[in-house]
């Protein structure tokens, strides 16, 4: 084979998905947000629904999600993403609408909106990133911080007697009749990444059925505020976070119905 022929052979083995923009991300090295963003972009591009999708960004580390994801985006006040998504979906029922929210946003200040959005069965996808800590404000205790886990506002570890218990909001959500598909995934290992992508894809696809809210929790890490290297944080997550927040589907649609 001549050199010219070799040059012409398509050697591309990987291409960045189009909806993941070229903007340099502000996320810390090893943070799960980047992977989660990419999965959303891949699913939307593979389904070819950019033109029909509106995202809602939260307050927190992922407040700038709209800088990295190339679809139309609305940035919500802290905790109100699911209410904002409700507003959009109700006036544009044919569109795909998703919110992307962290644990402080979704399970503390926005608990009311989260529960009522799911209870109304809004036909949206809620993607919930749970890393057990407030990232953007610098490592304060979150509603999902584990017992005895240290944060800047629980410096001696979360004392459940005075600080309360970590909130398993996903299990709570699954109990509501308005939810259609509720699952907990992670993005810290290749296998988990593939599963998480599948879950996100279902979350988008099910919207067309108008059967209720889809809720995908992604247990993630926060190397910077956990004060660990990325690898250490993934090990810690495996050992501690996943022990408390076990991975897997919590509520799956009746296959016959679907």
């Amino acid at each position, binding site marked *: 084979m001549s050199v010219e022929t070799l040059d012409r052979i398509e050697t591309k083995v990987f291409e960045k998905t189009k909806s993941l923009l070229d903007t340099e991300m502000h996320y810390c090295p090893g943070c799960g947000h980047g992977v989660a963003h990419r999965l959303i972009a891949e699913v939307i591009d593979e389904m070819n629904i*950019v*033109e*029909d*999708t*509106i995202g*809602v*960004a939260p307050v927190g580390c992922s*407040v700038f999600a*709209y800088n990295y994801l*190339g*679809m*139309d*985006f*609305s*940035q*919500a*006040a802290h905790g*109100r993403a699911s*209410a*904002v*998504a*409700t*507003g*959009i979906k*109700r*006036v*544009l029922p044919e*569109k795909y609408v998703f919110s992307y929210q962290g644990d402080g946003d979704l399970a503390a200040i926005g608990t*009311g*909106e989260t529960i*009522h959005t799911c209870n109304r069965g809004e036909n949206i996808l809620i993607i919930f990133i749970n890393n057990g800590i407030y990232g953007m404000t610098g490592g304060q205790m979150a509603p999902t911080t584990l017992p005895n886990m240290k944060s800047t506002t629980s410096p001696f570890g979360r004392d459940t007697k005075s600080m309360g218990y970590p909130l398993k909001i996903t299990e709570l959500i699954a109990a509501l009749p308005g939810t259609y598909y509720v699952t907990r995934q992670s993005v810290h290992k290749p296998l988990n990444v593939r599963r998480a992508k599948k879950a996100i894809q279902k979350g988008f696809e099910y919207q067309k059925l108008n059967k209720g809210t889809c809720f995908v929790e992604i247990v993630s890490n926060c190397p910077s505020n956990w004060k660990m290297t990325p690898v250490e944080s993934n090990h810690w997550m495996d050992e501690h976070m996943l022990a408390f927040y076990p991975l897997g589907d919590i509520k799956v649609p009746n296959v016959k119905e679907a």
Partner: protein
Amino acid sequence: MIKLMKGNEALAEAAIRVGADAYFGYPITPQSEILEYLSREAEQRTGMVVLQAESEVASINMVYGAAGTGKKVWTSSSSPGMSLMQEGISYIASAELPCLLVNVQRGGPGLGTIQPAQGDYFQTVKGGGHGDYKMIVLAPATVQEMSDFVKLSFELAFKYRNPVMILTDGALGQMMEKVELFEQQERTTEKLDWTTVGKPEDREHNIITSLHIEPEKMERINIHLQAKYKIIEKNEVRYEEIMCDDADYIITAFGLVARICTKAAELAREKGIKVGVFRPISLFPFPYEQIKLHANNIKGILDVEMNAGQMVEDVKLSVEGKVPVEFHGRMGGIVPTPDEILEALEKYIAGGKL
């Protein structure tokens, strides 16, 4: 079509007729008839989305989301509920989202009373949420205006990409009057270049946000907003003058109170005191110049409000000390009578204050 209607119902009917796309609300006295009326009428007649939210906080954020699509969206509440919405209103103003907000005021502070009041003037006109922003604020005085201002509000909201507030009170919301309803308009959505409706191939993605983390950018946004407010101040001042031409004294009042003051002015004229009434209709932009024009021709102003004295500050700013400005107010849900207003005016005149 002329009908006898409650103020709240005339307002809700007007929103149906103007072709509003969505209403998100939460029950609170004295404006729950709005949500009730819409629940009965709206969806089946025009397809308007009517959603009872879990709180005013949720309602205003639903408005934020839906308004970002360029649809005609609105909400209503009464004073305590409006307080809960202030954060969302600040976001809406910053992101420049057109929408209609209605405050059927009740007496405060706190949980207060369900009776009418005007204690939310400061909150509404001076910005109850955080940061430098303005809403366009319209104060109806009749059930007719409760209807007419809905149409006007949506026109202004889209013209300036700005939230518009109808600031009214429980009395006007609850009382029945004759109202001439405008014709049903079709529900149409104008194609706008900034909305979040799904990104086609041929444009960049649209982002509705109020976050601009670089100070230079945030300042530019602020300068842009202030420039817009200046244009609104230039174009959208609205007011009514009643018997002001030959007046020696002017009573300033907004909303329903201006009608009570008009009766007081008539009683005064029967006694030979030439009194006129100046009613600001737009509270932002405020008719500073128009009030100032009267300052050289009158002996004084009595400002009357159902609060402890809020708009009176703007009246004083208007006349720049050229004439004395006195105040008479009732609070806690008490509506002043024409007689007590006349009495207050006469007392100030007799005491040499006006």
